[in-house]
């Protein structure tokens, strides 16, 4: 019997009201992403890439349909239930890092652990492990302003994985980085996928970035077009 997918969208519809007009982003959209997959989502601006991440992250609500993640149906959850869902199941990586400027790298990484029942020593151990994975153990006491863009993004990745979520949602994670640094970040994501088994959904405009993913979904006018990337 095949394993059920980690992410499953069934008949999802979503639109936005703009003035008197309702703009439909998705209509009756289906999607299945198996656990351990690394999926890149590409598409023109306004195609619904970020909306898709918002729905998977429990940041936005569907108008119709089902959103299942890690065996949990999240489309009907309340705000506080969605907060718990995000804390326990999802890690986010943003284009502009979004670190807290007044906290050190270690404190930024520790933030999601404040929502757990872990003790101080356990939290410290988890933070050290996460920073080691992104090769920034020696920068634990540095503030974001003291680090390069690539280092800040690696701290953001450490923050995303520190609570061991099943799903990583990355929104243009290399959009603000040069090619070499972008490749470093993408390699880190690849390692998280291949060695730690994290399921990753990454929105990107960059075909080079998409090549790090196992498959690419092209989103256009609210519909997926799947194709294998050329080597």
């Amino acid at each position: 019997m095949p394993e059920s997918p980690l992410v499953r969208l069934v008949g999802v519809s979503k639109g936005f009201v703009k003035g008197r007009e309702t703009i439909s982003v998705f209509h009756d959209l289906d999607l299945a992403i198996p656990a351990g997959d690394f999926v890149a989502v590409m598409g023109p601006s306004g195609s619904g890439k970020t909306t898709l991440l918002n729905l998977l992250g429990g940041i936005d609500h569907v108008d119709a349909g089902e959103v299942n993640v890690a065996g949990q149906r999240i489309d009907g959850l309340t705000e506080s239930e969605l907060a718990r869902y995000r804390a326990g199941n999802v890690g986010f990586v943003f284009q502009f890092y979004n670190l807290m400027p007044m906290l050190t790298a270690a404190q930024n990484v520790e933030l999601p652990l404040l929502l757990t029942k872990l003790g101080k020593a356990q939290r410290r151990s988890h933070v050290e492990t996460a920073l080691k994975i992104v090769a920034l153990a020696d920068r634990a006491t540095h503030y974001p302003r003291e680090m390069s863009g690539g280092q800040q993004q690696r701290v953001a990745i450490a923050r995303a994985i520190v609570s061991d979520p099943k799903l990583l949602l990355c929104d243009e994670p290399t959009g603000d980085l040069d090619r070499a640094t972008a490749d470093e970040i993408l390699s880190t994501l690849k390692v998280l996928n291949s060695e730690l088994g994290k399921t990753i959904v990454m929105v990107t405009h960059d075909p080079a970035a998409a090549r790090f993913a196992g498959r690419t979904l092209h989103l256009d006018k609210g519909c997926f077009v799947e194709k294998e990337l050329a080597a």
Partner: protein
Amino acid sequence: MNDFVLIRKNLFRRKLRAILMIVSILIAFAIFGVLAAFERAFNVGQEVAEADRLVTVNKVNFTQPLPIAYFDRVRAFPGVREVTHANWFGGYYQDPKNNLIVFAVDPETYLHIISTDMVIPPEMRQAFIRERTGALVGESMASKFGWKVGDHIPISSNIFSQKNGSNTWDVAIVGIFGKRKPQVGTNVMLFQYAYFNEARSFGKDTIGWLVLCTTSPSINDQVAKGVDAMFANSSYETSTDTEKAFNKAFVAQLGDIALIVTLVVGAAFITILMIVGNTMMMVVRERAREIGVLKTLGFSSARVLHLVLGETVLLALLGGIPGLAVAAAVTLALRRSLVEFVPGMALNVSIVLAGLGFMLMLGLATGLLPAINAWRLKIAVAMGRG
């Protein structure tokens, strides 16, 4: 790290702004502390008032006299255990700037009634009763002027004069008394009514007021009404009330201190409320994206609300507690120079507790709107992802 560290780091991420807000709150609480200490000191007489003591004054005004004959008539009234009388002398020593609080009293009855307030050695008590020109001086007044037992002091009045035209009475200090309760002032002099009365050029055989003790506080009202009824329709109608009410009315001559304190502190608080509240609203707007990030990480809206409220409460405490410390220092410094007027001036526990309560209220009030805004903020809007 914990939520407190997060709150503290958020508060001090712009140090100058935080320090300016803390200083403004500090000033407000320093004003509150000093004014509250003043207000309490002015009303301290109400605290020392005995439950069974009544005061009878002229119904027109307590500065108007009563006939001395009232003393015996009140003493004979059913329910009255003992009575004494006193006169305001309006004294000064050598120079009118050296004000003295001096009362001309009936020695035996007066000392008996005030024995619950003051500590007077028995031999000094006897000397005061015995010596017609004797005077008892409180510790504070004796210390201020360097007086000791045996000194002969000329005390002058800016109200009364003698038949020979002089306004000075020579008294001999026969005793120095202390206090039994911390609120009691000892910047007071007592001398004999008989000595005062025989020499004065006007108002002879009149007294300022009567102090009477009832057999039980439960009959205070009945006795007060009975005494006033006894002198109704006479040339000197009376008004009898509890000592507490009398002391309160005496202080009210100087204006409603409580109202002044409330208005000054209220104005300072409202100003600070607006400054801090407006600043915190800006802060939340500036941090909208970070609030969005926290919510994305799984922080609930309620927890974000607590973080914002925690920040404003911490701000109020960081400004308020040093503010009360400044008020305590100022009160201590003023205490010696104002001992003549407000002997009980101190920043006591009740003022500190009230201050802490106000800090909490200020913190919650200034943080409420920004916290609600943070609570309601949608992630997609905060992150520009909508």
